[in-house]
């Protein structure tokens, strides 16, 4: 297991109830299923997944996120300075630039 899920609290002042989690480390064909299972437990039924800090995230990871998007109300965040942003754009993964944007869209005021 070479990944870590780190819960991210709502920023001060935001009254959000949607849980958010950052993925750190590496996701590849060898551990994508583990990551997927861990995320699925957290998505009850909504979840914001911040992929910005990952060091490595391959097509197995993208496929896993794709299935989660089908199964649950999930939003993905990839910040503009994340190394994986070009890859995410290439495979047409829908994402938000920031946690705030994601929350705004998932928790309409």
């Amino acid at each position: 297991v070479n990944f870590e899920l780190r819960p991210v609290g709502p920023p001060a002042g935001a009254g959000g109830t949607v849980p958010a989690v950052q993925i750190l480390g590496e996701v590849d064909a060898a551990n994508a299923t583990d990551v997927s299972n861990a995320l699925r437990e957290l998505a009850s039924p909504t979840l914001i997944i911040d992929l910005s800090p990952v060091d490595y995230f391959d097509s197995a990871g993208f496929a896993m996120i794709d299935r989660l998007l089908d199964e649950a109300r999930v939003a993905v965040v990839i910040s503009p300075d994340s190394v994986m942003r070009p890859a995410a754009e290439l495979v047409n993964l829908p994402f938000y630039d920031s946690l705030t944007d994601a929350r705004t869209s998932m928790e309409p005021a």
Partner: protein
Amino acid sequence: MGSVPADLRTAASLGGEMGSRILSCDWPAHPLGDPAEWSAAVRTTVATALACRFPAVLWLGDQLRLIYNDGYIPMLGDKHPAALGSAGSDVWWDIWDVICPLLDGVVTTGKATWFDDLKLMVVNDGRRRERYFTFTYSPIIGAGGAIEGVFCVVSETTERVLSERRLRTLSTLAAALMDAQSVETALDTAIEVCGQHPADLPFAAVYAGDEADGRVRLRGATPGATAVMPQSLASFTGRGSVEADGLRLVPELPALLPALATRLGDDCPEQGLVITLGGTAGAVTDGSSTAALVLGLSRYTPLDDQYRAFCRLVADRVSATIANARAYQGERRRAESLAELDQAKTTFLANVSHEFRTPLTLMLGPLDDALSSLSGDDALADRLRIVQRNGRRLLRMVNALLDFSRIEAGQSQPQLAVVDLGALTEGIASSFAEVCRIAGIELVLDCQAARAEADPAMWETIVLNLVSNAFKYTLTGSITVTAGPDRDGGATMTVSDTGTGIAAEQLPRLFDRFYRLADAGGRTAEGSGIGLALVRSLVEMHQGTIDVESTPGQGTTVRVSLPAAHAGPSASVADSIARSATGNDYADEALGWLGTSSRAKRAFSSRQLVLVADDNADMRRHLETVLGSRWDVVVAGDGRQALEMARRYRPDLLVTDVMMPELDGFGLIAAIRADADLASLPVIMLSARAGPEAVGGGLAAGADHYLVKPFTSADLISHVAARLAAAARDRSRPAGEEVSQREQALASLTADMGAAKSVSQALDMLLRSPVCSLGATAAAVGLLDETGSKLRITYAGDLTREVTDRYYLVSLSSPVMLAETARTDQRMVVPDTSALDARFLAEAADKAPAIRASILEPLHADDGAVLGAVGLGWPGPREISPADADLTRRVAAILARAVARISVAEREHQIAMSLQERLLGLGVTSPAAAVSAAYEPAGEVMRVGGDWYTATPLGPARVGISAGDVVGHGLPAATVMSQLRSALGAAALATDNPAAVLDLLDRYAQTLDDAAFATVAYAIIDTAAGTVSYACAGHPYPLVVGPDGTVTWLQDGRRPPLAVKSFAPRLDAPTGGAALPPGSLLLLYTDGLIERRSEPLDDGFTRLRAAAAACARLPAGQACRDIISQMTPGQGYADDVAIIAVRPAGTAAASHVDAMRASFSELRPARERMRAWLAHLGTSRATVHDVLLGTGEALSNAMEHGSDLDPRRTVSVEAFAAADEISVTVTDSGRWLKDSAASRASQRGRGLKLIHGLATHARTARTILGTQVTMTYRIGQAAHKEGTARQ
């Protein structure tokens, strides 16, 4: 009886037969008396002899009576047992004269004596035998000091002595025969040598076929036998019997040849052997047809196996020499007849040239007269000038041929004189000033005074040829001629141009006679190919040298150097120049090459326009004159110019030559047929090449008519008129024009496809015909694979690699349009892909924007079965009319026929290749290195060969590789090859010393029938130590390419080829060793790669060195393919070629090599290793990520698709860093069998997108041995990409 004392009794009881005999002897009645009364010394000695296993004998008493042991019995032969106790002179009567004095000596002096290999002619069984003995005689000294007898220990050495003597004879014979180059000498020498060794060969005679009538007669015999031997072999063959080994034994020779007996006396042999000569197997049965050797056999030596083998070896040696001599004589005859042929050719050329010159001169003289009497603008004068110019050209060529043949025949000698070569050269070259000015080329003359010895007339030929040649190939820029003294006191001239240049591989043949540069892009394709050969011969006659340097696209420099001048007569330079200025045919001819400055005259004319394309100015003028009487004519000097003019003037008809610079006639027609506006232009092709093939080629290329030169003016006019009339008829039916154009295009497509060699080529042909493809920009053919459940798709036209990779193999049931078409056997018409059924939207999205409209047709075999489907695509939505659909149906039918034909050929190819693949697949590979291999069968023939390679994993950090070559081709060679290959694999596992591995292999090879002379190189790569150890059995040197491109040959560890019994086995054969640092590449290959007929092997090594050096930074697989393709001789490989390349796993400054088992758990460690390397390079974080992600995706694909996640297989990564880019190649060893598109919804579909999308460019190479994906990341560009993405 009872008087034998106890000591003797004990010894005798142990003494075998002789012991018993001594015990039972009636001694008291014997002259030696009662043993009890024998002296103690005698008794002790007898006891010693009886107990001894060596032959021993005692000579006792005055009579030297014998007492001996069991070992001595064989010495006596039939003299035993009577010899016991008998007097020496009675027992050894036959040799008594020799041994009696020796024994007496011992008895009288008491001194022991001994002899080595003493020859004694012993009589046994009534026959005298030549025998040899080594023995000692020692005195038996009694208690009183008296000599009481002689004791002798003896051993017989006959066998060894004879064997050594015969070996000496054989080696003398071999040495003497070594130089025999004719059958005569061989036989004479053999007889002479036999005559010198009468002990074993009392006489010898040779019977051989007579040159004249083929009858076998006595050819010669040893001195004593010459006169008495029968002339015919029949005297011998009629007697005796043929033994099992084919030798005929002839008995009773003295009776057969009484004269021989008289001559040789007592030594006359009693029997002889008749042995066939000359390799004819079997026995001598009659005397009429077989050469034979008759050998007399010594009467003193038994004909045992050893003697028989000796005789056979003598005959074998003579036979081999005869065979060699015959081969040598054959070679010499061939060489002589070739020389004669060459001489005949030269004579023929000289005669023909000479015969041509007279009539030409007789034509040119009156012509000059006629011209001088006509006014300049007379039309007749114009025509006559054409005749004059070409007559002169012909004369010049004939003169050159004549000069050349004279030189070849040695008939021409230079009239040397000391000249100022500078002034002479300048004067000659300046005759080109005018033509260069007209052509807009600068002629630079830089000539300084230089004394040299030259024949001014020959020098003129040299200079004019070189300058004229430079002019021919220089379209713009300058020609520079320099002359001046050089440092050695001689003179040097150079002719440099800024012309098209000459490719390096053509340079060596440049001066060969009749050699013409291929596709040189000069002003004209005219030429005899004699000019430069003549120049070289002339320069050589001046003791000078000539060399050429050339860079394609930049120019050529020819340098002629003459040696220092001796004192000699001076020639007036002025004379020579005056002469050359009078009539420089070379410059005149060059003037004719100049372009036509395209006489554009499409004024308003009611006449139809004919475009003429020909590179010969006179031919252009002639055609213009002939056609100009009825039509307007525009002319072009080459194909490219003609194409431009066709587009500008829209002529009604094109008349074109075949051979033209820039673009030839075929290229021109292809370009016209591909141009929608010109496609219907009627074309008449003119060529000097006759014959149905040339005509067929012209018509297949799209010409409407083909005229063979020479043709009459009337012929040409009538064909042009007929074609124009036909075109006019077509035009008068406007509705029909399009139809006729389609019919024509379909017919032409049918013809093209008949020649297509691959599906991909057929598709290209389809796209090149805009009429047939309806202007489609992309096309694809999907063919059912062996299982009938998948389509294997071939693409052409504008589609990205990513698309063609993704839709490479699709299941018939998948939602892909081609699959749907093939599955339902229904045409699909898709005017706009965005309006497609939802099932196909994914495919439509992948293929947009290249494909927005499509027509798909099923492909049927002749019997109606579905073969697959073809699709055409356009980049924008498109209305598709019923007429379009009708056309595509017909195109599909044409394509189906071509595809069916190609499939049959490919299936055969596939069978041959899959056999080879089965034999040569690398299979289980190693995690210690990136290993790739390639195999190229000989020539175009698909057949299995005897070359192999192997890779054997030897633990995590070591791998053993081999390349080997079995003599021969075909199934037998392949069988031995696979046996050796398996044995090598097993031996590699048994020991880790390469020399020991080859020892084992050699021992195994000895047991095979056809493994002799197989060669092999075996190497063990140790990536932990960074070394390679190796051994080579008669195999060409392996080589190491360092990271910087230095090439090191591995020349140690040499040993003979396998299973060669005549070479002494060397169990201590050495192992070689060398460094193999990370980033370097080890190559093993078979000799087919470097060998070319009629070329020294060193040239092959030199070429390989250059080809290998270029591979320093290429992945192993690419290196194998590049080397094989770069080393390919012009006519293809004559022998099959195998090559295996290994790059050890490891990281260096500019490279990173990794290999791993095909398991996803390997991905992360591999990524960490690569990340460390990238970090060391100092690459940006974003680039590191992109490279790692692309590589990771390629590795996942390679593991899953290429290796089926089989952990016994491995995949490898080879990465190279340069200043501005990083390239990564991922290699697997399998064939992708799964549907590459069906898993699109899962991660693999995205994988290809990431591979192609993140890299600057990516490409995929599939071979029978596996798939390679190479991704290149430009470092600057990647940084830019991330910059834009992050703003």
